[in-house]
Each structure stands twice: as C-alpha cells, then as structure tokens.
C-alpha cells in the first residue's frame, strides 16, 4: 500500500512538474525558450494509427445457436489494423476534424466436429477470417496539449464500416450446401478514445522528428471501439462486428 502511495505521489509530482513547466515559456534574444507540450512545427495535415486489440465478433447474436463459440471457443481473438486520417479542418480552441479510413484483420480457427458425432472433434481446421474496413469522421480534441499543457488528446470517431469475411474448411473455402462461405457485412462504426502525447517524454527527439521527418506529434492511445456490422439489424448478413478495446501508436504529420 505504501509502495502504491509512493508511486502515485511520484507520478503526480512528475505530472505537476510537466504541467507547471508549461508556464515558464517565452522568447528572448536567442529565440523561444522553455518546454512546450506542443510546438509550432511543420504543417500538420493527417494522422496514422497502428492498432492492436481484442476482437470477438458478435456472430452468435444473430442466430439461434452459438456456432462461433462452439467452433472457436470463447478465447479472446486479436485484430491488427491501420488507420489513416486526413485532418481536413482545424476547429479553433477544440481540435481537428476530418475523415479517417481504417483497415483491420483478424482470424479465428478451430477444429471441425464430426457430423456423425458432434461431440467428437476431427483434425480438419475450420476458420473465419474477417477484414473490417471503415470510413469515419474523426474529431481529435488537441486543445488540451495545445492550450493547457495537458498531454492528453480525447477523440471520437463515427461513420460506416464494412467487413469482408471468409470461412474455410481444410484450407479451402467453406460451403454449406451450395452456399459459399464468403460475404460482406456492413453497418455503423464508432469509437471513443484518448491519446497520450509522447513528445513530453523526450522533447528533443520529438523536435528532431518534426524537423527531419515531418512528424509533428506521436502518441500511444487506447480506445473503445464498436461496430454493428449486421446490415442494420438484418440477419441476412453475418454480424461480424464487435465491441472491443484497441491500443496502438499514432503519429500526426
């Protein structure tokens, strides 16, 4: 308990030092001085995210049984992804707004069961691969680091998502009768998250990255992410959406 208190105190002290340091800024005959959470660097027009998170599609929510859980179990699966944003507008005293295009991939695999005895597992691999793609409006409220020296950027995303999915048995595309085990699902997509500005940890490197590479800021982020890829409530599409968390790295350039 004491150790926890000590760590918390040190953390707060560190935080307060970062925050208070923002106040000692100015310009003298040598130019700008004092630490700055954000800098007037190269022009900023976009962001890129590398994303990683859990992904358990809600396939079973739209059917009578639990085929997904029965086949793949309830072990958490993971998704990797990329997102690129165009920071089209800068809203004064708030942040940036613009469209973002994202891509991800996840795959679940397990062993098929014997048709004659569903309790017995075969040696044939069966899998479901999902490739979500989405187009969202992204609002990043970078007013906090820019105007208050707080290195946190809350953000929100809202838009439409779609996902290509395909199922395979024994390495070949799966069929149920003559229905091919591939499809496309779509629906709304949304996310809420926060980014921690990494520039405050090493300002010199951050400055160098801006000068040499044009990277304005770098972040780690965490977000809660939801997608309802069920064609707006229809069971004609496999619901491969998920409510889940995502973490990752982001840069603004």
């Amino acid at each position: 308990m004491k150790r926890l208190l000590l760590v918390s105190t040190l953390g707060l002290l560190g935080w307060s030092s970062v925050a208070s340091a923002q106040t000692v800024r100015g310009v003298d005959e040598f130019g700008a001085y004092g630490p700055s959470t954000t800098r007037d660097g190269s022009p900023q027009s976009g962001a890129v995210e590398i994303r990683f998170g859990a992904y358990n599609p809600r396939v079973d929510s739209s059917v009578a049984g639990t085929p997904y859980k029965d086949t793949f179990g309830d072990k958490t699966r993971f998704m990797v992804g990329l997102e690129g944003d165009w920071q089209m507008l800068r809203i004064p005293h708030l942040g940036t707004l613009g469209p973002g295009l994202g891509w991800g991939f996840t795959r679940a695999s397990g062993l098929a069961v014997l048709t004659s005895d569903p309790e017995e597992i075969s040696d044939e691999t069966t899998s479901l691969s999902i490739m979500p793609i989405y187009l969202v409006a992204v609002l990043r409220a970078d007013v906090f680091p820019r105007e208050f020296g707080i290195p946190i950027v809350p953000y929100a995303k809202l838009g439409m998502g779609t996902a290509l999915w395909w199922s395979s048995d024994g390495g070949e595309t799966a069929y149920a009768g003559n229905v091919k085990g591939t499809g496309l699902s779509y629906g709304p997509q949304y996310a809420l998250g926060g980014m921690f500005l990494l520039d405050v940890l090493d300002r010199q490197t951050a400055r160098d990255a801006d000068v040499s590479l044009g990277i304005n800021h770098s972040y780690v982020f965490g977000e809660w992410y939801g997608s309802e890829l069920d064609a707006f409530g229809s069971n004609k599409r496999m619901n491969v959406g998920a409510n889940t968390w995502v973490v990752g790295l982001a840069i603004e350039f």
Partner: protein
Amino acid sequence: MFNLRRVFALWAVVAWFLGSGGLAQAQTTTSITMTVPNTGVSRDHQDYAGQVFITQINLKDCLSEDFFNFTVSLSSGLGLANYGLEVWAGTACDMTTARPPSTAVTCWEVADARSPTYPNVTGIKVPIQRLLSGRTGGSDLDAGSNTGGTDSTGGTGGGTTDVGGGGTSSGGTSSSGGSSSDVPSECRATSSVTAAQPLTIFFMLVNADKTVASQVQYKVTFKLNAPAPPTNVQTGIGENIAPISWDAPTDNTDQATIDGYQLYCDPAPGMQGVIDSGIDWDPNILPPACFESSVLTKNARPDDKYKCGTATKTSTRANATGLINNVPYNVSVATTDTYRNVGVIATPPACAKPQPVTGFFEAYRAAGGEGGGGFCSFSRHTRPVLLFTVLGLGLCLMLRRRRAT
C-alpha cells in the same frame, strides 16, 4: 661455288615451307573459335521444363530418356575439312590422355562424331543416359575425386560395380534409384551424396591424330537422389481430406537438400481411384481398417496418379486431398528436392478414413444464419436503403461543397 642468288632462292623455299606449315598450325589452334550460344541449347522433354535450369538433370530426365539438343557456332570455316567434331563428357577431355586409347581415361563420348559445318553445327543430340553413363558404376569422374560412399541403393541390377571406396553406406535411406532392376544403371546414383554433381561436356574440333584444335565446354549438373523420407507419418480425420503430419528427416545433409514434400494415397484420389482399387465400400459406413497397399511399399516411388497433396520444405503437415469419405486410404509422404526429384516414400503407410465433418460455416447456417454466398451477393430481403441513403447524403455533401468552391 658460293652463289648469293642460290642462297636467297633456297632461303625462300625453306621459308615458304616453314611459313605454310606455321599457317596450318595456326589454323588448327587459334583461328576457329567455338561457342555454344544461349539459344543453342534445348531439351527434348525435361522434367519441369521452364521451372528449373536447362542445365539441371534429375532422375526422371534420365529415366524418360530426355536429351540435349545443341548448336555449336564456329567463327571460321577455313580448313574445316581437316577436323572432326567430337563431343565428350568428363574431365580435361581436350587432353588426348583423357580419351581412349589411353589407359587412364577420364572422359566418355556422349554424341556421335561428325563433320563440322560453318557457321553452325546443329542438331547435336546428347542423350541424358549416355551423358551419365560414364560415371555410373564408378566414381564421379568429373568431380576429380571420389564423392565418397557406396551406392546405398543396392547396385544389384544392371551388373554395375560401385567403386566409391572410402565411404560408407547410408543404411539404405537414400531414395535414389532403388534396388529394383527397373532403373537403368546409367540413372543410378553412384554415391549416397545427395548434393548435385557437376559434369562438363566438351565440344571439340579434333585433328586426324586426335589432338584438339579448338574446343568449347558446357557445364551441366545432375542429381539423381532425393533426400530420405520423413518419419512418423500420422493421419487425422477430415471431410474428403486427410490431415497428415510427419517428422522431417533428421540427417542434416538431407535436410539441406529438401525442397518440399509429396503426399501419396492408395487408392488414388477421386472416385476413379476407388473404382480402380477394387475395394468394396459403402459410402454410409466407416470402414474398419485399411487394406495392405501394394503401391506404398518400402523403397517405392509411386506413380503420379497416386499423388494427393504437396507441402513446402518447412512444413510438417499438409492435407491429402481429393479423397472420398468413408473410404480407407493408405497415405505416405516422400521428400522432393530442388531438382524435382521425388524420393522413396516413408513406410509403413498410415491409414486415413475421411468422413463428413461440420465446419464453422455449416454450423452457422444450420443455426439459422443467412449470411454468405459471396462478397458481392445482395439479398432482396436485406435493407440496403439505409446504406444507399448514407452514401447518397455523402454524395450530396460533396457536390454541394464543390459547387460552393
């Protein structure tokens, strides 16, 4: 009486003789350059032609009596009638001591001698079996030294004698040739070494006294033995497939030359395979056991019709495909190498009994799910109105923005 005019005349005559002799000698040694142009080499029916180098020879090339077709270009036709064109293989064939009647030959003739023609000598046919005949039954002449090891595959057929010396047998694990007499002696590996061996073909303009006036060399490589088969072949249950697993050969030398694996099934894949096998089966009853295979036997290299799958060199599992449910299959695995040699199969074969299974998608559909049917499928019952509305609104916004600017 000293007569300066006679001396000059004699000198002129001697000089003429010497000069003419010198000119002839120059013609035989330097004036004709021979080349084998890139377009001057073809193979009649090389195994995996286009996927392997034209210079590569594997066991199947030898067994199928493939041959090279060469065209040799000559830079000059001057004095060509004085020479014969001979084609030999081996080591230092341009030396007369390397060829008969020398007692220490290191070369053998691989094509019939002919009269050269200017500017090209076309249609020089070099049969693979003839090309390999000189080194079969003895040490690898072209390597200049014994490659070590006796032929582990037997050497009982064809009356050839392995004189490798100094090495040891690999214990019969080498897959080349086999001990069966159906492999001609020319096509048998002469050592247990699995690496490719070089061989040089000499195209030579030969004088009447068998000295070489001009020559060009063409290098090929041959590899007649694939690595040893994998071990511990296991089968599993799948629908119309049999998941197979195995352990890679543990010999490091063998592992280095492995390029993949070939799966074999008996009966052969497909319904025709079941019919041809003559086994009595009921599609609704799981067979109790596999029959004893007469195809997948020790040291066998089965016919291509029994192929039922492949795997990459780093794999230790793959699916045997094209199988019929509830048919008992003997399944085995052989290695393949970079020369596309297929080794002997692992024995004894494993037994697989494919039967219907329920995968995820079938389970999903059985639970009432209606998704699927392709990426581009649209059902009449879905509600694409919302999607089209959103897309329409987006389009309107774009147009409005463009008009404003």
